[in-house]
C-alpha cells in the first residue's frame, strides 16, 4: 500500500513538473516545426539571435493587433540578429494561411501542437510570447494584451547584449 501511495505521489509530482511554467533564465525548450511554407524551423538554428516566439491564433483579437508590429520588428531588427517565430494555436490551418497571406507575414509561422505548448508550460490562453536571448535562454514571458512599445524596448536591450557578455552574466 505504502509503495502504491509513493508511486502515485511520484506520478503526480512528475505531472506537475512536466507542466511547470518556464521562467526567465531557463533554457528555452527545443523544438522543430515545419512552417506553413514548408520550411523546417529548429529553435537551435537561431542560437546567437534574439528570438521572439509568439503563440497566437486567428480568432484572438489581441493577437491580431500584435502581428503587424511583429512584422515591423522582423523587418527593422533582422539585420541585428533578431527572429520572430509564430506558432498558431488554431485547430486547423486554412484560416491561418488566409490571415498570414493577407498580412504578408515575413517570418516563419507553424501550426502548434499540444506537446509544443506543454513544453512551454502550457498555452492556456492567448496571446503568449517569449523572448529568447542570444544564448537560447528565456528572457521574458508576456501574456495577454501587452504594451508592444515596452516589448520593443526589451527586444532592443537584448539585441545590444553581446552573446559573450550574456554568457558572462549567467556564470
Amino acid at each position, binding site marked *: 500500500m505504502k509503495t502504491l501511495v509513493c508511486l502515485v505521489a511520484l506520478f503526480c509530482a512528475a505531472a506537475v513538473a512536466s507542466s511547470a511554467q518556464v521562467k526567465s533564465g531557463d533554457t528555452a525548450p527545443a523544438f522543430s516545426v515545419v512552417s506553413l511554407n514548408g520550411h523546417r524551423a529548429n529553435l537551435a538554428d537561431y542560437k546567437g539571435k534574439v528570438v521572439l516566439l509568439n503563440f497566437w491564433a486567428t480568432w484572438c*483579437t*489581441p493577437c491580431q493587433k500584435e502581428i503587424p508590429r511583429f512584422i515591423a520588428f522582423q523587418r527593422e531588427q533582422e539585420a541585428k540578429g533578431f527572429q520572430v517565430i509564430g506558432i498558431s494555436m488554431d485547430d486547423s490551418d486554412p484560416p491561418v494561411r488566409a490571415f498570414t497571406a493577407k498580412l504578408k507575414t515575413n517570418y516563419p509561422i507553424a501550426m502548434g501542437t499540444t506537446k509544443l*505548448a506543454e513544453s512551454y508550460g502550457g498555452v492556456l490562453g492567448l496571446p503568449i510570447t517569449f523572448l529568447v536571448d542570444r544564448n537560447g535562454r528565456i528572457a521574458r514571458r508576456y501574456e495577454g494584451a501587452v504594451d508592444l512599445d515596452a516589448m520593443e524596448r526589451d527586444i532592443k536591450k537584448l539585441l545590444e547584449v553581446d552573446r559573450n557578455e550574456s554568457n558572462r552574466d549567467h556564470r
Partner: protein
Amino acid sequence: MKSRLTLFILLVASVAALAQGPAIENAHLIQPSDLAQLLQSKDPKPLIFNIGPRMLYDQAHITGAELIGPATDPRGIDALKARVRTLPKKQFIVLYCGCCPWSHCPNVEPAYQQLRSLGFTNVKVLFIANNIGTDWVYKGYPTVRGQ
C-alpha cells in the same frame, strides 16, 4: 446640435460596452471560485460545455467539461445545438471558453445567446477574466490535464 450630442453619447456608450466584453447579464455569470466549490460539493453538477478551441481543451480543461468547439464557427454552434437537442430547458448548463481575456473572448456570447434563443433558462457563463490557465488551472481548481 441636440441630435449630434445624442449621437455622440450613443457612440461613446457603444464603445464602452464593447470594451467591457460579451453582453451577458451579471445574473448569468458564475465566478470560477463558485463553480470550483460546486464541483467539489455533493450538490448536483451542471453540464459544462467548453465552447473554445480544441488546442486549449486538449491541454487542460475543467473536470467533466465536454468539448463543443468554438462558437464563432458555425460548426461550433451546430455542435452546441445538437448537444442540447434532447435536454430539458431547465437543465443547468455552464459555458466557458477562456481562450483570451474576457473583454476579447469571441465565443461566449454567441454560445450563450444560442442557448437562450433555444429556450434554456438555467445557463451560466463562467467569468474568466484573463484566461483558463490563470483563472482556473493555476488556481488548482478541478482540472483534467492532457487529452
